[in-house]
Structures are given as structure tokens and as C-alpha cells.
């Protein structure tokens, strides 16, 4: 198993970003958070809501960890300079949310997962889709230790087995059972409009929500 890096950088200090920071701190990670602008803008939120996490600029925060979680509105992914994430493992937790992102044809293509778009933009990073399907309040309320009954599951879609494993460890550390569902393209089955979207259930139940995932997408990754 890959050695777990205990640093975590979260881009986006909103509802999801703050909850992920809280969970990662609880799991013993050193956490770096950035918003879109000056760290001053998010400092108080981070200090009060996720005490111990560090509020930094995007450029600083992305340097501090090999794993970067994207928790900003999907419509703004291209505002993160791709060079800042070069060589990093990027966890894409974003969904196309038209009420925030506006009507965007590019984000609504039913043929590709939005994570594939994110991957093609960050073409020098490795993107794994995870932490996107569960509501932020459930993420906070529903953590359980390893082996606890009814431990909730978080799905992972990614093209590289070693990276998937690292993300699985992160999810496990945060308090959830990781569930590998297949390649990055399979992430589409976690998006809004699919049964797994919003899922706050255990591993078996989550797997059952993915019954319509074609086997070719679920194929084992290398």
C-alpha cells in the first residue's frame, strides 16, 4: 500500500471545503486551505470552524501537499492555474450545479464525466473523482471508525490504481468506507441525476445504486 501522505490541501473554503478540513484535522492531517483570493478573507472562518488548519493563498496551499482536493464551484475550475497542480494527485469533489454555475453547455455533456474535463484541463496532474456525492452535512455527521456497523461509503473513480489507493486511504482516514467503482469516466454515475448522487449509505447499498454502470466503465484499473 502507498505510504499515506498526512498533508492535505483543500481548494475552496465553502461548505464542503470547511467540512473536509474539519474531518482531516480530526484524522490527524496537517491541513492547508485556500479560497479564491487573499487568505485574509477566509482566515477567520478557518480559525473558528477548522482550528489548526492553515489559510493560505492558492499558490502556497498547493505547494504544501501532494494531494489536492478541489472543493470550489465546478464552473470555476479553470480559474485554478494548471501549473500549480502539476504532478499532484487531484481529488475532484466538484459537481455541476447549474444554480451556482449558471447554464453551461460544456459542463452538461452527457457523454463525458465532468471529472474527465477537469483531467483534460489539469493535464499534468492525476485526477480522481471522490467526495462529491455525499452532502456536506452528512459528511460531517456520518463519520464512523473502521469496522463500525453501517459505516457509510464514498465512491472513488480514477484511472490509476495506486492513486485510487491513496484516495481510499484518505477516505478511510476521514471516517468512511472507500468504494472503487471504476475509471474516471465512471464518475459520471456519481453526478447529479444518478442514483448514487446524494448517497449517504453503506458500501453494499452504494454498490447497488450503481447497477446501471456498464461493465466497461467499471473495468479494473491498472
Amino acid at each position: 500500500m502507498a505510504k499515506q501522505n498526512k498533508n492535505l490541501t483543500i481548494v475552496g473554503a465553502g461548505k464542503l471545503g470547511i467540512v473536509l478540513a474539519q474531518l482531516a484535522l480530526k484524522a490527524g492531517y496537517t491541513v492547508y486551505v485556500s479560497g479564491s483570493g487573499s487568505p485574509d478573507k477566509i482566515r477567520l472562518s478557518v480559525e473558528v470552524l477548522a482550528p489548526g488548519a492553515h489559510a493560505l493563498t492558492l499558490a502556497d496551499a498547493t505547494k504544501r501537499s501532494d494531494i489536492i482536493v478541489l472543493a470550489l464551484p465546478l464552473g470555476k475550475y479553470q480559474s485554478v492555474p494548471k501549473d500549480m497542480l502539476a504532478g499532484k494527485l487531484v481529488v475532484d469533489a466538484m459537481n455541476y450545479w447549474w444554480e451556482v454555475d449558471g447554464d453551461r453547455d460544456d459542463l452538461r455533456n452527457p457523454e463525458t464525466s465532468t471529472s474527465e474535463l477537469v483531467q483534460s484541463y489539469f493535464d499534468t496532474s492525476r485526477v480522481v473523482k471522490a467526495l462529491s456525492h455525499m452532502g456536506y452535512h452528512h459528511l460531517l455527521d456520518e463519520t464512523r471508525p473502521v469496522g463500525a456497523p453501517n459505516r457509510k461509503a464514498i465512491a472513488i473513480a480514477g484511472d490509476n490504481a495506486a492513486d485510487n489507493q491513496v484516495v481510499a486511504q484518505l477516505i478511510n482516514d476521514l471516517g468512511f468506507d472507500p468504494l472503487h467503482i471504476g475509471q474516471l469516466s465512471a464518475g459520471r454515475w456519481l453526478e447529479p441525476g444518478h442514483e448514487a448522487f446524494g448517497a449517504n449509505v453503506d458500501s453494499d447499498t452504494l454498490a447497488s445504486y450503481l447497477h446501471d454502470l456498464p461493465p466497461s466503465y467499471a473495468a479494473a484499473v491498472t
Partner: protein
Amino acid sequence: METTQTFKFGLDSFGDIPVDDDGKLMSHAGAIRQVVEEAILADKLGVDVIALGEHHRHDFSISSPETVLAGIATRTKNIKLASGVTVLSSDDPVRVFERFATLDALSNGRAQIILGRGSFTESFPLFGYELRDYELLFEEKVELMAQVLKEKPVTWTGTTRHALAGAEIYPKTESGRIHTSIGVGGSPQSVIRAAKYGFPLMLAVIGGSPERFIPYIELYKQAGEQFGTDTSEIGIHSPGFIADTDEEAVEIAWPNHKINFDRIGSTRGWPPMKREHFDEEVAKYSLYIGSPETVAQKMAKTIKALGVNRFDLVYGGGPMPAKARLHMIELYATKVIPRVKELLAESDGISGKTK
């Protein structure tokens, strides 16, 4: 005890369309008149505030809360008349003030505003705003609103509305101030914004554990300290339903809650609501559904945990029988509120806590 005396109990409606005695869905007009009757009953039974949300969709009848509130104003005596929320991003702060100041006159000073971004976005295309500007729109308009509420000449410049130079806005209110809060969900930035302008905070907790908002309240207070503003007024708003027994409450609420949730969820990409999740919310989290005793216990627990001084119960989600809604209001006012007061007084007595 002071805590219980100053505590405010509210009822919130979005003007959901109820069914009549024959099980027939009411018209929008009928649904609006139903809300007026409910507010009159709530006033008679001593509920502190009725808050009406603004929506622009076929499943909710109220798009102009202050107009409905004006109707209620002339037929009630004590109940405070609030919006919940006024979607400020797609409105004009000057017009918002004018309408609520008018309501304040008609109601002898009972108007209240809750500003919010709203949880729906229909008003944006309707009034010619871009969704992607929603952050900027809200930010600028809150800033202007805060000025207008001072009832002094307003000078303001921004990008989302034309500038004002020493503009007087009328009518002036008798008290000199319309009570105005900001409704927020889980966004830390919104909490800080409320503190920045010294607006009371209304937490919209529509799912999950209310306790997770404790750090947000701390954030509000600490931000208030930094800005030097008053952050003593904090309320919470959560959905619920009350019937004579737990079973009956769940039996009436579940299908209606599901219809409501699924209709909204389908536009956002949530799959249909499952019964287990409804049951989980009722048992553990933020659906206040059950007999008066069950709901009172749950409310008291939340109020104590968060230390808030206002609780608004959002009622009537989905096509509920109008009769069940009226009965719910009666139970809320005559059983739940007194019981919550009792529970709060008991625990105040034990801890000797004064607020």
C-alpha cells in the same frame, strides 16, 4: 426566566398548495387565502411571528410575501410579519425597503425582513439577472440594504444598480428601524457577512444535525467582535409537522415531504427520497415531526444546544390537507410552545443560567 420570556416562536410558510376537504389541490389564490387564515389563527393563539418565503414556481403560491403580509396585517394584532426570505439578489433594496416600510405602517410596526439568497433561482432569469453573478449581487445589495435601513439620505455606488446620491427613501417608519435579519445556510462567508453589517442571524437548518451549527454561531460572534457589531440575536428555522400522535404526524408528513423533496430534487439531480432517509432525519436530525411532546422535546434540545433565541418551524411542505395544517398550528401554539418554554425554564433552573 429571561431566556424563555424573550424567546420568539415563529411559523414559516412558502405558500405550498394544500388540498381542500375533498382532496382537491387548491388554486394559487386559495393557497394564499389559506395562509392568511393560518396567520390569523397563529396570532389569536399567541405565536410570535409568521414568516413567508418568496418563490417564483408553480408549487408555491407566494411570490410577493409582503403583499400577503399586508393582508394579514389588517386582520391581526400582535404577530410579527416577516419575509422568510426576501430574495435580495434579484430585488432592489430601495423597493424592498419601501414595501416593508409600508407593511410596517399597516401593521403598526410589526414588519420584519429576513434577507437571503434563497434556495431557488427562478427569480434570476425572471428579473434579468445572471446566476453566475449571484455572489456579487448579494454582496452589493446587502451593503446598500444596510444603508437604506438607517432611514437617512443614502449615497451609494456599485456595479449592480445605478448609484444613489443623498437619496431619501419613503415612507419613514415610526420606530426608525425595520427589524431585519439575514438567513444563511452552511456558508461561512454568509455568516461573516451577517456579522459585518450587524444583522441578526437566521440559520436555515433543513437537514443534518443542528449541533453542527454551533461553530457557525461562534464564527458569527467572533466576527461580530472584530467588526464591533451586535450579534446577540440568533434564530433557527427548520421544517416540521405536528399531529396528535407520532404515527399520525409521520403518516401525513411523509408522502407530502416526499412529493416536495422529489419535485425540487428532480431539478437538482437528486434521486427520489427514500423512506429510510426520511425516518433518519425525523429520528436523529432536522425534521421536527411528531406529537406535541416529541416535537417540543426535539425543539428544546436544539434550542439549548445552540443557545438561539428564536425558532421558526417551517410547516406545510407538499400538498397537505388544509385542515391538517390548521390543526398543526393549533397544536404548535397551545401545546408545543408552552411545553418548550417549560423545558427551557427547567434547564435554566438547573444550571442557574441567565441570559
